[in-house]
């Protein structure tokens, strides 16, 4: 909502308050301000001039040389404009002057002829093209509408000065979308008196009943309809004061009648519509619903197909307007219009919204009805428009008005407890102080025992329950005047075990050199193909967005692997040498019943590429993660069939009978799908399972008191034996005295037969309560070797 301060002051006296204080005051009482613009503040030396002579430029076809009377003197100006004639009054910027955009103008020669300034176009006066009055020429000089004293400051004439405030009006306050609404707010905010415009007509003639009758068929959708008739209409541009006010409100001046309806809409908040009465057949207005499929051409020259829920304004034979949205082309006011039927009506907001949405036709009127208009301003607005028509000499007003208002909306009284207000705000205001605040908002207040009954005018339909009054007291009293206290109750803050574990997991991964990333929860369905998931994969059990931004964000992710690969690919393409990243986030699995929420499961996904990065690095990180979360005895089982991974370099992570996750080298097909020509390592772990299995309790183990004995062995086995098989046998046979196993070498080559490998281990034996004897250790170690040789068909390497 653009509010011209100069216009606002017509209704409320804001003298002696600095613009900055007005701004701050409004903001702090709840009318937020986006900008305050000082109109034409740069303008210097632009005055009214009159063209006395025009001659052709001797050396340039497209230029003319003019003599301009600026009061004190006559100056010569050379211009290329072709819309001026002798006798025109025009704005002239003098030598040394400055335009609104800051451009300085100096005298100079144009093709050898001296020009002492410049005639200004609308744009040069600071009027944007989309606001330039219809009677002005976009390409030409701005022509003044009549004679003005020569040499007068142009801003005094055009009114293009002062401040315009852009308010951000919240949806609960449609009453503030008008000058009087903001003037009322100013009254409450600045404690200055608000004056309603004095609406009175000087002269009326005839009787409206002879011109028109009005009938509302659907009083639910249109609960009030006021009509006025104006004869002897003379369509012409409206005066500059009205044009400038409209432009400052962001509305383009068209002609006097349209301008007046817009002016009153901005002033009082009531949309008006003017019909050419000569095109209304049968002297009759009927408000009724359209027929299904009925065609209607709105005044934007668009043929529209209506449905039977849409409300129309009709005459005896046809539709003439789409109620509350837009008039019809058939009854539009034109330059030749002689008689006008003026509509000021109140339409149901939800209905207007529905119609406007269905037709994709949103207008200033429809938007105002949607937000809410005061049903009791309807008649005042009609009369105010007639008053302006009379004042501007745009027509003669026919006596009387038709006001169909079967069920007038009345003000309602609401009981409010001052004690409650103080309780919610933490204040100790007296009832009298609250009454003063309510009265400043034009509410009426009566005492009712300890409480008060507040009667709210119909323009404030946001005031429904007591809490609405709490807010009014708070904002007018001032949020800044409230105390600053802390809640009295005691409470213990903290994180849940799950939240602590999540932090711990992130900490471990960071410590292991992994960067945390965050990616969108919605992904492209194609990502499942890029990951090479099979057609029947559970990962394809996705939920889809009804209205995604694009296909690439159209399903909720069932895995984070695609997201991580995408990030790796992006880094790879940007020539980042090495990337090690993880994301801990949600995945979404569709439920059978599509009206239930999907299963949201946390997963942690790791990905990496770069020099020296290999399978065992990601494995090491996975192991550290489990170790750090107290999950012991995790097994890594070769997985040859996961389509995303290298069949020989992938492992499932198993804990007892739970599958915790999978990791490995990314299958070259998948890497290629992501445009990466390098080895990538990827893993995904079910974090929900981790949360169940993690152990946060820690117990101290006594430090060893007795010496350890270390025995090494190297075993030659077939290539396809997994070291896990060796380790399982070692553990099985190591008994109590086996403290640790460490793989220290795997050798394939000349020394070992083709198809075999040598695996070297270091075993540490120790007892908690004594020094082990050589014999004891030899016995156990010998048994281990024997079992290894027997079960794995291995031979000890010398």
């Amino acid at each position, binding site marked *: 909502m653009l509010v011209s301060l100069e216009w606002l002051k017509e209704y409320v006296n804001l003298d002696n308050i600095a613009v900055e204080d007005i701004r701050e005051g409004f*903001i*702090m009482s*709840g009318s*937020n301000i986006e900008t305050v613009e000082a109109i034409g503040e740069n303008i210097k030396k632009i005055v009214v001039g009159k063209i006395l002579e025009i001659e052709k430029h001797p050396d340039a076809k497209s230029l003319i040389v003019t003599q301009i009377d600026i009061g004190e003197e006559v100056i010569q100006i050379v211009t290329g404009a072709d819309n001026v004639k002798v006798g025109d009054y025009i704005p002239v910027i003098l030598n040394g002057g400055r335009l609104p955009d800051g451009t300085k103008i100096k005298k100079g020669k144009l093709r050898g002829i001296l020009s002492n300034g410049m005639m200004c176009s609308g744009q040069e006066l600071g009027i944007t093209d989309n606001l330039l009055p219809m009677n002005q020429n976009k390409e030409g000089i701005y022509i003044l509408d009549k004679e003005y004293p020569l040499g007068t400051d142009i801003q005094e004439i055009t009114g293009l000065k002062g401040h315009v405030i852009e308010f951000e009006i*919240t*949806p*609960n306050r449609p009453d503030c979308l008008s000058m009087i609404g903001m003037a009322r707010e100013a009254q409450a905010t600045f404690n200055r008196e608000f004056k309603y415009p004095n609406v009175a007509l000087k002269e009326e003639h005839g009787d409206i009943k002879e011109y028109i009758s009005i009938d509302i068929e659907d009083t639910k959708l249109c609960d009030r309809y006021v009509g006025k008739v104006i004869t002897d209409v003379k369509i012409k541009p409206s005066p500059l004061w009205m044009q400038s006010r409209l432009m400052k409100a962001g509305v383009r001046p068209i002609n006097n009648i349209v301008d007046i309806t817009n002016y009153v809409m901005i002033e009082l908040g009531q949309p008006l519509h003017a019909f050419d009465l000569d095109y209304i057949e049968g002297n009759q207005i009927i408000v009724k619903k359209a027929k299904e499929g009925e065609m209607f051409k709105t005044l934007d020259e668009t043929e529209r197909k209506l449905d039977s829920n849409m409300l129309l304004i009709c005459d005896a034979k046809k539709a003439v307007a789409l109620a509350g949205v837009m008039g019809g082309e058939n009854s539009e006011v034109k330059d030749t219009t002689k008689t006008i039927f003026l509509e000021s009506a109140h339409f149901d907001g*939800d209905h207007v*919204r529905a119609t406007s949405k269905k037709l994709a036709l949103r207008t200033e009127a429809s938007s105002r009805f949607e937000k809410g208009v005061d049903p009791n301003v309807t008649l005042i607005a009609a009369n105010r428009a007639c008053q302006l028509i009379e004042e501007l000499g745009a027509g003669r007003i026919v006596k009387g008005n038709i006001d169909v208002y079967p069920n007038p909306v009345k003000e309602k009284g609401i009981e409010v407890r001052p004690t409650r207000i103080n*309780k919610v*705000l*933490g*204040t100790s205001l007296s009832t009298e102080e609250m009454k003063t605040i309510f009265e400043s908002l034009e509410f009426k207040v009566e005492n009712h025992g300890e409480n008060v009954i507040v009667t709210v005018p119909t323009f404030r339909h946001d005031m429904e329950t007591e*809490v*609405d009054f*709490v*807010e009014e007291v*708070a*904002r007018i009293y001032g*949020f800044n005047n*409230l*105390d*600053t*206290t*802390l*809640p009295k*109750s005691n*409470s*213990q*803050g*903290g*994180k849940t075990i799950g939240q602590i574990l999540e*932090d711990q997991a992130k900490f471990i991964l*960071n*410590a292991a*050199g992994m*960067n*945390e*990333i*965050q*990616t*969108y*929860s*919605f992904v492209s369905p194609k990502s499942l193909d890029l990951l090479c998931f099979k057609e029947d994969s559970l990962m394809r059990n996705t*939920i*889809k*967005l*009804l*209205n995604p*931004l694009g296909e690439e*964000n159209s399903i909720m992710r069932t895995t984070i692997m695609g997201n991580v690969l995408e990030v790796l690919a992006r*880094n790879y393409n940007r020539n*980042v040498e*090495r990337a*090690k*990243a993880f994301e801990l986030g949600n995945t979404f699995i569709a439920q059978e019943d*599509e*009206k239930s*929420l999907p299963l*949201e499961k946390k997963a942690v996904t790791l990905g990496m590429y770069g020099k020296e990065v290999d399978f065992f690095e990601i494995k090491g990180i996975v192991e550290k993660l489990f170790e750090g979360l107290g999950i012991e005895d995790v097994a890594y089982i070769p997985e040859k069939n996961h389509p995303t991974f290298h069949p020989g370099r992938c492992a499932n992570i198993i804990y007892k009978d739970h599958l915790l996750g999978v990791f490995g080298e990314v299958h070259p097909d998948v890497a290629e799908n992501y445009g990466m020509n390098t080895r990538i390592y990827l893993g995904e772990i079910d974090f929900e399972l981790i949360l169940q299995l993690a152990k946060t309790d820690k117990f101290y183990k006594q430090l060893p008191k007795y010496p350890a004995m270390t025995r090494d062995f190297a075993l030659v086995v077939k290539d396809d034996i997994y070291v896990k098989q060796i380790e399982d046998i070692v553990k099985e046979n190591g008994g109590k005295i086996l403290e640790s196993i460490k793989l220290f070498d795997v050798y394939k080559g000349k020394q070992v037969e083709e198809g075999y490998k040598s695996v070297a281990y270091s075993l540490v034996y120790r007892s908690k309560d004594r020094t082990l004897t050589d014999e004891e250790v030899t016995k156990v170690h010998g048994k281990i070797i024997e079992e290894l040789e027997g079960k794995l068909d291995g031979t000890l390497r010398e």
Partner: protein
Amino acid sequence: MKEQLQQTQNQAESAIKDAHSMQELQEIRVKYLGKKGELTAALRGMKDLSNEERPKIGKIVNEVRANIENALETAMTEVKQKEKNIRLSNETIDVTMPGKEVEIGHKHPLTGVLDEIKNIFIGMGFKIAEGPEVETVYNNFDALNAPKNHPARGMSDTFYINDEILLRTQTSPVQIRTMKKAKPPIKVISPGRCFRYDTPDATHSPMFHQIEGLVIDKNITMSDLKGTLNLFAKQLFGENTKTKFRPHHFPFTEPSAEIDVTCFKCQGEGCRVCKGSGWIEILGAGMVHPNVLRECGIDPEEYSGFAFGMGLDRITMLKYGVEDIRLFFENDMRFIEQF
């Protein structure tokens, strides 16, 4: 004999003087004091001496031995010190060369700031509540008193799965879940991902993060809301931070406020970050609407409370001077590694 011993001592002392290394000194020790050394030989020769002479000469032998040992000891200490000095001077390295690369992963910047905010609220007695990203229309809008025709409900503002399920547009549904599950007193913050139908650009992202807070108890006032958020702002942005509460309108709170804090870049002087105003808007808040309490089975006559919400992405951008929100979700390693 006496002269001979004296001569041996002189020879030894002169050899010690000329020695430059531990090895030479060891050789000297062997030569004079070893089993086959000269002094040992001299001692051995004592058996030929008379009983009178033996103790005299024996004394001299011991004196000579002690003298040689002392001289050796002193010389060895000196040589050790010299050798150490030489080693130290040979071992000089260029300490200005870079350290060994130790790899440490980095927190995502949003996590870093979120952790900071969580810690502040935990310190004030808040717990952390979480909820699903895919939510019901009821929890996201209806229960929060959002009017049926509120534009935010539209398909051009909110992502829908179907007419009952959507991607949450705020973390307020977590408040509804919390209020329906627990009895007051309630004191939680709910951080998390949110989604709105915005095409990504420098300041918009279809996915972003909110942190909302909720306090419900007997006698909670709007003054408590002011105090809580004042304290929060001071802890996050510094002790001199001021707050400005401006009236606003939200469906689920009344009275409602938007809260500005003094610009932490310019301390309120006016700069590029705050667009010259000296203030930065970072929070929305208000007293929980009685309709919302009632909907969650809490009697608004007995209990009252406040709620607040802020955008984590925006705060992080302001704090770190990040000018494009998309950087958070592109995850360029060179970006993440700055935090």
